[in-house]
Structure formats: C-alpha cells, structure tokens
C-alpha cells in the first residue's frame, strides 16, 4: 500500500464526488457515487478499518446506492432519455461552500489534534463487536428501533391506496 495508492484512491474519491455534484445526468451522478463510496471504503482500509470498509461496501453500495437507483427509476419513466437535472444558485452556493471550506481547512491545519501512536490491530471486527456488546450496547439496540421506525415509515409512505 504505497503512497501512490493512497493518492490514487483520494483522487478517485474526490473526482467522482465532483462528478456526483456536477453532472447534469442523474444516472452519471449515481454511478459516480458508486466510485466515491468505493473510494471511501478504500480510505477506511488505509485507516485500519477493514470491518468498516466491508460494511461500507455492503450497506452503501449494496443498499443505499441501490435505493437511490430505484429512486431515480421510480421517479422517471425508464424510457425517458432525459433524466438530466439542473442546479440552482451555484454561484452563491459555491462561494459559501468555499468560505466554509476555508474555515475548515484553517481549522484542520491549526488545531493540534490528539495524536497517539498505536500498532495496527490484527482485525477490527472483534474489537468492534466487543464494544458493541459493552460500551455501545444501548446504541446498538436503539439502532434497531431506529431501523424499525424507518421501515415502518417508509412502508407507510410508499404504500399504495389506503
């Protein structure tokens, strides 16, 4: 895993993200999003979070992205060639976002982050699992309720008829 690989992944992530936000074609955006997610997963691996990378691929790409694609298809006639879309207030939005980025970048550079050396763990799934059963058991359970609620909500809203 050389530095080149890292920068490659960063480049893929960011360029595809740029396409996501700028493409006029919704499909292209969705496809680009796929690459972004992959890129992020790659970054996770660089960051010694292999389990998370797996989850990222599974849920984001296997779940969310598919949902998004469904969303695109359900809201546009599949035959329609024109699923392009436009943007608004790009100028102002761009300036605001750049300002914000400047603020963030300044913060990142100036702040003495908490840094501590640590050896690469052999695997992360076990540690995460342990945490989920101890410190974060409650959030784990709450997440299930959240999913229940979301499920129910999505069902209510998309149900046909009465």
């Amino acid at each position, binding site marked *: 895993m050389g530095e080149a690989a890292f920068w490659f992944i960063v480049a893929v992530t960011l360029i595809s993200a740029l396409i996501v936000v700028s493409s006029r074609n919704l499909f292209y955006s969705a496809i680009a999003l796929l690459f972004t997610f992959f890129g992020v997963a790659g970054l996770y691996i660089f960051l010694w979070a292999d389990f998370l990378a797996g989850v990222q691929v599974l849920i984001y790409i296997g779940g969310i992205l598919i949902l998004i694609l469904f969303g695109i298809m359900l809201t546009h006639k599949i035959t329609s060639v024109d699923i392009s879309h436009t943007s*608004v*207030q790009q100028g*102002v*939005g761009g300036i*605001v*976002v750049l*300002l*914000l980025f400047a*603020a963030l970048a300044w913060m990142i550079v100036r702040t003495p982050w908490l840094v501590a050396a640590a050896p690469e763990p052999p695997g992360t799934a076990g540690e995460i699992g342990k945490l989920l059963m101890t410190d974060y058991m409650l959030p784990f359970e709450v997440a299930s309720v959240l999913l229940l609620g979301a499920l129910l909500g999505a069902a209510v809203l998309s149900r046909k008829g009465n």
Partner: protein
Amino acid sequence: MNIFIQYALVIYLLPLAAFGIQIFLGKRLPRQGDWVSIGAVLTTLILALAMFAGMLLNYNPDFETRAAFTWIDQGAFQIRMGFLIDNITIIMLLVVALISSMSHIYSLKYMAGDPRYSRYYAFLSLFTFSMNGIILADNLVLLYMSWELVGLSSYLLIGFWFEKDSAANAGKKAFLTNRVGDIGFFIGILIFFTAIGSFSYGDIFAGVAAGKLTGTLLTLGGVGLFMGAVGKSAQFPLHIWLPDAMEGPTPVSALIHAATMVAAGVYMMVRLFGLMTHDTLLLVAYIGGFTAFFAATIAITRNDIKQVLAYSTVSQLGYMILSVGTGAYVAAFFHLLTHAMFKANLFYGAGSVIHSMHHALHKKKDHETDPQDMRNMGGFKSKMPITYWSMMASTLAISGVPLFSGFLSKDAILAGTLSFAGKYPQHFLLPVFGFGAALITAFYMFRLMYMTFHNQPRRPDIYREIKESPREMVFPLVLLATLCLFIFYTLPNVNPLSDEGWFSTLIVARDSVVPVEMGPVIASEIEEGMHHSHYPAMGISIVMVALGILLAWLMYLKRRLSPAAWADKLKPLYRLSAGKYFVDEIYAKYLYRPVLGLADRIGYLDWDLYDKYFINGFGRVTTWLSTLSGKLDYDGLDQGIIDGIGRVIRYFGAILRGLQTGRLQSYLLFALLGIIIILVFQTI
C-alpha cells in the same frame, strides 16, 4: 359670635337658600317662586339696614370684627375661612342689598312672562350670594371663590336670553375676559401666600408689615391682585366685556354691570390698598385714569341707550380706580357708593324706556326697529315724566353738578388727583384725565337725555304708544333718584360743597403697611393734600361740567352746532370713537384667532402629525389635505405611533418573510450563511 357676624351669616346664606329652592322647586311654586328670592333679598336688606344702623350708633371708625373657622387643615397647610366686618363691609353690604332688592322688585314686571322666570330669580339670588361673599371675605380664598362665582352668575344672567347668539356670546366673553384678570389675581394670591403662608387679610397685612414680602415681588403681587380688579371692574384693556354684557336683562345690567359686581374690583382695591406699593399704585392710577377718559370718549358716539351707560360705567369705574391709584381710596369708595345709586337708577330708567319701547313695538308688530336705539326716541319727557325726572336727577349726579351726590364724590377724586400730582408733579397727566373725563361725561349724559326725552319725537308712530312704566318699575327709580341728593351722604352736616359727614367720619384712610423703604403712598398725606386742593378741584370741575352741558345743549337741544358736521371735521377721532378704538377687532386679530389657530394647529399636530408621526411622509400630505377640507378623519389602522412602529415592524417583517421563500435550498443556504456569520462573530 357677635350680632354682626350672625347677621352677616344670614345675609350670606339666605340668598343661597333662595337659589337652591328656586333652581329645584321654582317652577312648581306659586308665582314661580319669585317671592322666595324677593323675600330673601328684602330680609338681607333689612338686616343690612340693621347693621348700618348699628354702625351709625356705634360711630367708631375703627370698628372691626372677625370670625373664622378652619376650612382646610392639612397640617402644615391650612386655610381659614371667615368674615371680616368693618364699616366698609357694612356700607357695601347695604349697597348690594339695596340695589339687589330694587332689581328684584323692578324685575317683577320687567321679566314678567319670561319662560324662565324662576330661573332668573334663582340666578339673581346666586349673584347676591356671591357678591356678599366678596364683601364679607376675610381671606383671599373666599374672595377669589366668590369672585369667580360672581363671574358665573354674571355669565348666566348676561346669557339669560341664550336663544340670541349675541347674548350667549356676550356671556362667554364676560366670563373669559374676567378669567384673564382672574389669572393675574390668582398669581397675586399665590405670591402673597407663598411669602406669608396664609390667606387671611390680617395675616397678610401683618406679614407685609413685617417685611416677609418686599421688593419687586410685592409690587408684582399687588399688580396681580389689581389684574383681578381690571377684569372685574372692566378696566382697559379688559373693558371689552362690559358693553357686550348689556345683552342681559336691564335690571341685571343695573345691578351687576353698573352698581355692584363691577364695583367689586374697586372694593377689593380699597380693602387691600395697604398692600400696594408705590409702583403698583402708579400702574393702577394710570390704568384707571386712562380708562376713565378713554371710555368716556367712546360713550360720546354710542346711539344705543344702554351702550352709553355701559361705557359711562367703565369710565366711572376708571375714576374710582384712578382714585385708588392716587391714594385717595376713601374717595374711591365714596364714589363707588354714590355711583351705585345713580348708575343703577340710570339703568332702571333706561330699562323703563326700553320696556316701554318694547311694548310699543310689540303693539305695532314691529320686529325690525331697535328698541334701544336713541335715534328712534325723542320727546318722551311728556309721556314718561317719572322716568325722566328720576333719570335727570341721576344725570346731574353723574355729571357732577352741585347738590347731587356725584358732585361730592367726583370732587373728592379730582382733589385726590390734584393732591397726588402736587406731590409727584411728573404725573400731571392723571388730573388731566380726570377733568377731561368729567367734561365728556357731562356731555354724553346730556346728549342721552336730550336725544331720549327732549325735542320732537323722531318716530311719532312709536311715540304714540309710549307710556309710563308700571309701579314696580317706577318705585326703584324714585327711591334711587332720591338717593342721588347729596344730603344722604353728608348728614348730619348739610353743606353741599363739602363731603364732611357720617361717611367721612366712619371711613378714614388707613396707611399702607408697605415698608417705608419701598416708598408707599401714604393715604393720609394724600388726604391732607386733598383738603388743600378741594376748592381748586371743585372750581375746575364745575367749569368742565358746565362746558360739557353747554356743548350738549348746543348740539342736541338747540341744534346750534351740528354733531354730524363736527364728526366730519374730526373724522379720524370720530372714527376711532365710533369703532370703540377697534379694541375688539385688534383682540380678534391678534389674540383670539391666533389662539384658536394655535389650538387647531396643536390639535392637528397631536392627532394627525404626532400621532401619525412614524408613518411615512407621503401619508402626511393626504392628512393635511383632509384637514384643510375640514375633516379630521383618519383612516383605520394606518394611524398612530403604534401603527407607525407597527408599520416599521411589519416592513421588516416583510423583508424577513422574504427570506422564507419556500425554496428549501435557499433555506439551507441561509443556514450555512448563518453559520459563517456566527463563526465570524465568534472568532473576532
């Protein structure tokens, strides 16, 4: 409580009771209750006579009795109410009771058949009550209160025939003009109270004597009090209400606007003479002297019989005020006494003529002709002999012809001015005013007599219907005409050229309490001087009077001189006189209208500008236009500060609401912007 106080209390309260009964029950009583008022006033007359008799029996110039109670007791702030009775009080009480009784009796016929007959008597009683309050007061508060109440009764009586706009206006004018004077009066009271801490005459005199109030403030206090007199006694420049007050019924004019109420100012000045500084008195003298002369010159050109008498009253009151100013305040009071008799009589006479004219016109169904205009009269002497002769007696008295009362009092006044001018030669103008007025007085009074009673009737049609007035009206005429003779004032002495007698014995000048370093006018010194100037004054005045009568005789009886030609020759002067020196017009232009305009403008400012202040300037034009068109309307919610602020708020609200575009992404953008703003705010 001695007998004088008891009598005074009855005299004071009885007319009030009559007023109450009349107002509430009057219409239901038999004869509409006139007997209640007349009974009350006659009782007061009897009591006043009794007091008068007591005074004569006592024969003590220093007689004085007081009674008072605590009216307001707020600890450090107290007002004591009470009566002060001395010889001046008693004489004044008698005058008021007498003239009031005469007016009551006179009115029995004069006012017969009036729809508000009982109301009229109620008001007369109210007046009597108030006037007695002025006379009896031993403190400035009761004086001021009665002073205002007199103003009220005068207002009610002048405007008694309120269906006539002129009468209603005259009443209002009288009240307001009087209030102008009263403001000064009030400020004077405030000055005295503030310095001395009491309202009672006794305390105030003692306080001034003790030097608690000195200097300019004392002068100003005196001027303030005098302003009250200026208003009430119709002195220049507040004289304007009195001629208008003739809109009231004639007995009222006789009682209130000739004999008593207008004399209240003089009475007050006589009472409080001791408080006046030299400077105050100078002002008093000049105002009085000028008024005497000034009003007389206006009287020359009046054609309305009551107007002549009204200006004559103003002029005579000026005499009295002049006399007070020169320190001869006893003479002033003496003139007050004699003037009350002859002037009331003159009014009754005039009333008798008018009454008769009224009947004549009524019979002829003539509603155009003015029953008071002397140009419609003439030759009435034969038809109304009693009226004529009694009026003639009064005319002689007022003109200052020997053997009549006016001669004595006027002589005293003129002697006083001479004496004063002798002491302070720079004020030579005062006697000039006095003697000049004497000449003119004689002239216009005889003019009145000649035009009314002598010559050929100018309107024979009316003349035919003229007849002598009924008994109730003639009786007062005769009685008062009798009282115009000098003898009643000089008893037990019978010397037509000297005023020595009971009056001069019982009423003596008291010295001012104003500290010597302020150079007070010492009344006794003036009195002393009067003895020396007595005969010169008499001589000059007789000459003047003779001249005046002669002039009138030539012009109006013998027609040797044509009044019209003379008027033409002296055109500017004539115009001034005929126009009453345009005082009313000047006031209207420079006083009433500006004040009313100011009020309008302030009202407008308050309501339409201030209240709408926050509204944008564009709205202002429209409101201005709407005000111009006489409408003070306002349009619904778009008004007021609140709305102004409300508008501003709503304006910003609209801007802020503009942020709520409904476009989601704008919201998000704004939120981000907000974050950046906060960030900047936080890091700076």
